[in-house]
């Protein structure tokens, strides 16, 4: 008797042998290169300026000859043309499509996303939610910030996997935590997809209501977190506090990256069916091998709508050198922070995530807000501002923390304990020394 296939169960691409996978990806890359050269003036110009024809790209190594670009170049192009149509998109007014936005300190850029883009990227993302435990008939809590491409993909994921959904009123800003928490309690979802800072806002709302978080999350089996990196210890603590079966972290950006943890939590598997990731040296542009940190460069493998081809996301990340115990062959990666959040200390580049890993070694400091204070020049020591923990002796803790930072990061550190850190969004943990005391929301 034939076994019935469960709705949305992903295919076996993620266990393909490496050679087959690379062949599959390279064919996709060739397709988007050809498409970009033929159809998209933004890329045609860049290819011509680099004296490069897509036919001359015969290996992954050759791809590195395609010039990278950053968000600033996209914004400049928009300003020059006075329209969102930068020539990076296949625009067809007959398409069913939406425009979405990316946000950030530099400004807003736009993505033209037709139905075919949504189908391909959404179906790819469905695998991530499957890994995260979402199944047909489950009830999922989602935010609906329709300005963001994740909403466009999530709506497809829910249909594809046959789940139902509940959407709280508002958006994923901490001031809507009350609505989100009420929705959680009232409608008892099995699965929650949420931004990490919003999850922390929900925990704060639980404390405000004097409600045990475990009770609020009583119905929830799995959480899928995006938006900020979570350390292994903070995950364990959150799991314990919320009483959920597991918490998965997803990585992604609207320009093309999807990466997701499996249940082994050894890093994020890059979704090889829709994106290709390289790590490059930010100074030389040279490709870096697995295990070396550098800028994350993304190539979307979806030749519809707005196409990002060798886009330097200016995120600091690395391809992890180890294979995952789960047996999946899709490479693992980690993204630590925005490159702009790097702090130079005694000639070393440090990101807040490195510090967070050390802080989380102390049970009293797991999840406690902190900030790295950055001066104008490279500092001789790491300067930290840490919210005073509810229990424990900060001075004793400080000495042990300094020793750990010296051992792990090979830098000296000085810490200052404060009652409360300024509220900030997306957990940005760098404060400029000159802005000391200026709250950033």
């Amino acid at each position: 008797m034939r076994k019935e296939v469960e709705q949305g169960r992903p295919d076996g691409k993620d266990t393909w042998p490496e050679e087959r996978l690379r062949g599959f990806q390279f064919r996709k890359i060739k397709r988007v290169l050809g498409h970009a050269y033929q159809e998209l003036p933004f890329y045609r110009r860049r290819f011509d300026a680099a004296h490069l024809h897509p036919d001359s790209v015969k290996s992954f190594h050759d791809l590195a000859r395609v010039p990278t670009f950053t968000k600033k170049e996209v914004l400049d192009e928009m300003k020059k043309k006075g329209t969102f149509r930068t020539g990076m998109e296949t625009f067809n007014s007959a398409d069913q499509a939406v425009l979405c936005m990316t946000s950030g300190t530099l400004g807003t850029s736009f993505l033209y996303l037709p139905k075919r883009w949504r189908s391909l990227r959404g179906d790819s993302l469905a695998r991530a939610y499957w890994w995260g435990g979402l199944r047909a008939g489950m009830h999922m809590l989602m935010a609906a910030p329709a300005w963001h491409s994740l909403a466009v993909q999530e709506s497809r994921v829910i249909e594809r996997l046959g789940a139902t959904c509940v959407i709280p009123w508002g958006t994923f800003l901490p001031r809507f935590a009350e609505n989100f928490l009420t929705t959680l309690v009232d409608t008892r979802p099995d699965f929650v997809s949420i931004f990490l800072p919003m999850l922390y806002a929900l925990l704060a709302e639980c404390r405000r209501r004097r409600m045990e978080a475990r009770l609020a999350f009583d119905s929830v089996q799995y959480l899928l977190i995006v938006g900020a990196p979570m350390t292994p210890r903070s995950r364990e603590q959150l799991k314990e506090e919320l009483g959920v079966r597991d918490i998965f972290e997803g990585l992604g950006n609207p320009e093309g990256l999807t990466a997701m943890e499996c249940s082994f939590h050894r890093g994020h598997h890059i979704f090889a069916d829709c994106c290709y990731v390289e790590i490059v040296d930010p100074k030389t542009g040279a490709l870096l091998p697995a295990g070396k940190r550098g800028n994350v460069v993304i190539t979307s493998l979806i030749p519809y709508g707005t196409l990002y081809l060798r886009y330097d996301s200016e995120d600091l990340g690395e391809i992890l050198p180890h294979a995952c115990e789960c047996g999946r062959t899709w490479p693992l990666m980690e993204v630590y922070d925005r490159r702009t959040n790097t702090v130079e200390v005694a000639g070393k580049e440090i990101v807040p995530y490195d510090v967070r890993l050390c802080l989380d070694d102390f049970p009293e400091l797991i999840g406690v807000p902190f900030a790295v204070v950055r001066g104008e020049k490279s500092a001789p020591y790491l300067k930290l501002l840490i919210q005073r923990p509810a229990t424990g002796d900060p001075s004793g803790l400080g000495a042990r923390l300094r020793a750990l930072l010296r051992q792990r990061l090979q830098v000296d550190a000085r810490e200052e304990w404060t009652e409360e850190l300024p509220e900030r969004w997306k957990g940005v943990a760098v404060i400029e020394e000159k802005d000391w005391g200026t709250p950033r929301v």
Partner: protein
Amino acid sequence: MRPFKQLLRYALGSPLLKKKFGGLATDIAGFKDFSVKIPLTTLEELVAEKMSSGDPYASRLCENGAALVTLQLEYDTETRLYIALSRQDLKRYAEALRRCWSLLGLGKGDGVAIFDYGTSPVSYLASSAFTPYLSQGAADALGCLPICNDGVANMSQRAVEILKFMRPQALFIRSDCLEPFSIESERQLGRLSGYTRALVVTENEGCLPKVEQDAYEKRLGLPVYRLLRIDAGMFLAMECPECRLFHSWKDLYYVESVTRAGDDVDEGGQNYLAITNWFARVCPTVRYLSQVKGSVYSAGCRRGPVDIRIAA
């Protein structure tokens, strides 16, 4: 079968409605009878029902309804309320939004910007890309290209960017974002008419007062229309650019103007709008008494000769 008979038949699947008029449902002979015999449902009643029963849908959910999408509603009540929708509910609700857009003259190839939360029906019914199980949003049906900003007032700067780089035919905007947006657009764009053709101000169970509407039109230099939402009843109505009354549609809604006690008011009289929704199968709406003061006018506008017209 008369639409109210059909409605009452399935509405009896809802515990709240069964409790309210279960015994009366079979005796209704016509619209007059319907208005006299079927009691109104108020927001306060829904809140009380939710609090006593603990049911998030305030006992409105039909037991046989295929609820796929649940939305928390925008009401500042003691407890939060929800509606649930099936594929068919979503389809018909989006059809109401499509008609609102059509009345405004939006069509193939037009850009439409929305400055509202993703949870507002003005946003989530705009495109099938925004909402699971919505087969066709207003933009899909008309061939428009939608873009949605968040509904937070301090996102005005981003709304201005949308206008600058997209030049949409219309901007739908939450009423509480209108003033911050106006300030930002005056600062950055000068007169708005170079960037869009009309603004449409939306609000749940409320309308921008006419005086303010006129003042914004004058100040911003372009037409400012209003879109009326009554979210608990899954109701939408659009102010007509020609007759300047709200248009609604008989095949989707039955609209009455009543006193709070439920008595009818003659044409032109000012009272509260009560909404009966013909399409909502999962959370039926039968004579929901809104907080919107308004009166129902007879049909007769060139832009929609058979449309229900409402002054609010």
